[in-house]
């Protein structure tokens, strides 16, 4: 696994995106919801020959994706995903975007309506630094990866890894695979929820319908 990550580093893609890319089989149909400038999709098309599609809110992101030859539509993820037919993708990716959704519960259901599997990553608000920040300073945490003051942040629905697992349970979503990701985007070895929720900066989950 370690060697794998190092060999991939040369290909200029963020490490947390690589963890996602590694889980997607060759030739899959993939929708990246909130695809940014198309970095992950371009990598997947090149390395895994996937049939790639994206949804992105920022016109600049769409512009950059289109210039990479990707098919990306501009729009609000929660609105646009509802227009895709059931089972139109093998994998639907929601990377670092769950916390910006109006209704994270509804988007999770939508991901699994449109895709056979969903890959979801999100910042873990249960991380000890976040907890300590709130405890010590009594102010909403602003960290490197969550770099907005509370009143203007697009990240309106933070959760901890424990919250996320509970929500999946409530929605009858099966967690096929879950991993804790550290601050540099590498995979952490924890299996115990208490440690995962305390030390992971991100959660990364592969979901299917129960």
């Amino acid at each position, binding site marked *: 696994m370690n060697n794998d990550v190092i060999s991939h580093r040369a290909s200029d893609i963020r490490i947390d995106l690589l963890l996602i890319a590694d889980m997607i089989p060759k030739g899959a*149909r993939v929708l990246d919801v909130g695809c940014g400038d198309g970095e992950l999709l371009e990598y997947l098309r090149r390395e895994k020959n996937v049939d790639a*599609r994206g949804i992105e809110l920022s*016109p600049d992101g*769409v*512009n*950059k*994706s*289109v*210039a*990479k*030859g*990707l*098919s*990306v*539509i*501009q*729009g609000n993820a929660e609105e*646009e995903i509802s*227009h*895709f*037919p059931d089972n*139109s993708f093998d994998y639907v990716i929601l990377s670092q975007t769950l916390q910006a959704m109006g209704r994270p519960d509804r988007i999770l259901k939508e991901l699994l309506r449109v895709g056979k599997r969903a890959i979801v990553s999100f910042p873990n608000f249960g991380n000890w630094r976040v907890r300590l920040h709130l405890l010590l300073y009594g102010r909403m945490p602003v960290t490197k990866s969550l770099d907005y003051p509370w009143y203007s942040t697009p990240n309106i629905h933070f959760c901890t890894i424990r919250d996320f697992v509970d929500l999946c349970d409530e929605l009858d979503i099966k967690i096929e695979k879950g991993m804790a990701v550290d601050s540099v985007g590498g995979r952490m070895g924890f299996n115990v929820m208490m440690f995962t929720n305390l030390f992971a900066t991100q959660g990364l989950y592969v979901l299917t319908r129960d």
Partner: protein
Amino acid sequence: MSVEQENTDKDDGFAEVVTLGENDPLRLSSGETLSPFNVAYKCWGTLNEDKSNAILVCHALTGDQYARGKNPITGKEGWWPKLIGPGLPIDTDKFFVICPNVLGSCSGSTGPKETNPATGEPYGLEFPVITIADMVSAQVRLIDHLKIDKLFSVVGGSMGGMQVMHWAVNHGDRVKTAICIASTWRHSAQNIAFHEVGRQAIMADPNWRQGRYFENEDRPHAGLSVARMAAHITYMSERSLTAKFGRNLQDRDKLTFGFDADFQIESYLRYQGISFVDRFDANSYLYITRAMDYYDISAEYDGSLTAAFEGTDVKFCIMSFTSDWLYTTEESREMVRALNAVGAQVSFVEIEMDKGHDSFLLDCPDMFNIISGFLQAESDFGEGSDHE
């Protein structure tokens, strides 16, 4: 070097006119036929050996084949000067660009102004009612004539975008990519309503004479001018009108309490109307607006846009403008959603512009970047996969 020189020289010249369908009549949507018919067109760039670099540019309602270079009739610059040319988004150093005048228009292609071979006089209302499909059929004949099997791209805004969508849906095997800007998949009731106002203005002009004004000196300029004025309002946004004119008075300090052009906007519209009649034929205006009204790419598919797109291999790039209330973002999104529903390759951007529908003809860096990026990536990607 000599080739480049030749192309630059061709920029400002008159269009080529080719006579087609002499032995093979063009069958129209109405059931009537045209034989022969002329297509006037301009080309820029050089067609490569395997004829794989051709881009067809489709013009809008009152446009013509002079997308680039000086229009020899009006003396004005072409209508997409910053989009088409060497090193520009539609790069003529790389692509062979063809821009034909649409059937029914009045800039050299067969239309109501041209001579009816059967009677020896101008067609007038003898000209058959045509559709967007018929315009495209004539373009298909032109592409056949140029011995181009498959277009690298078809590009157009507004009515040009309607031609683009018709190409993609009905001649998808001859198009690799399609760029549709500020357009729609069918004319709405509101679109038809505005066009009807324009047509009624022309037909109410006593000089129109049931379309036989060519028999007299006088032209239905008053009617055509009013039609243009009404249409021109729909091409701009309320915000851009306010920003440009507001309630400013025209060359006066106070209201005149008469019906002169007190306001700048009145003066501007009158100028738009008057300058239009010199370059456009009133009957062509009737025919082309009719063609747009009849446009609905879902019509042959029981009104299902999804069915129309089913199985398409064309790669789409669709753009709309925030302030365009004539062909709205929602209409573009309907196409995008239907394309996504059938798993087609489609990109879409709503561009922030406050100039209304006309934005597609204006200096719009976001639009230029998208088109440039899309075409560049497609040609790189296409070349890459050829080598594999």
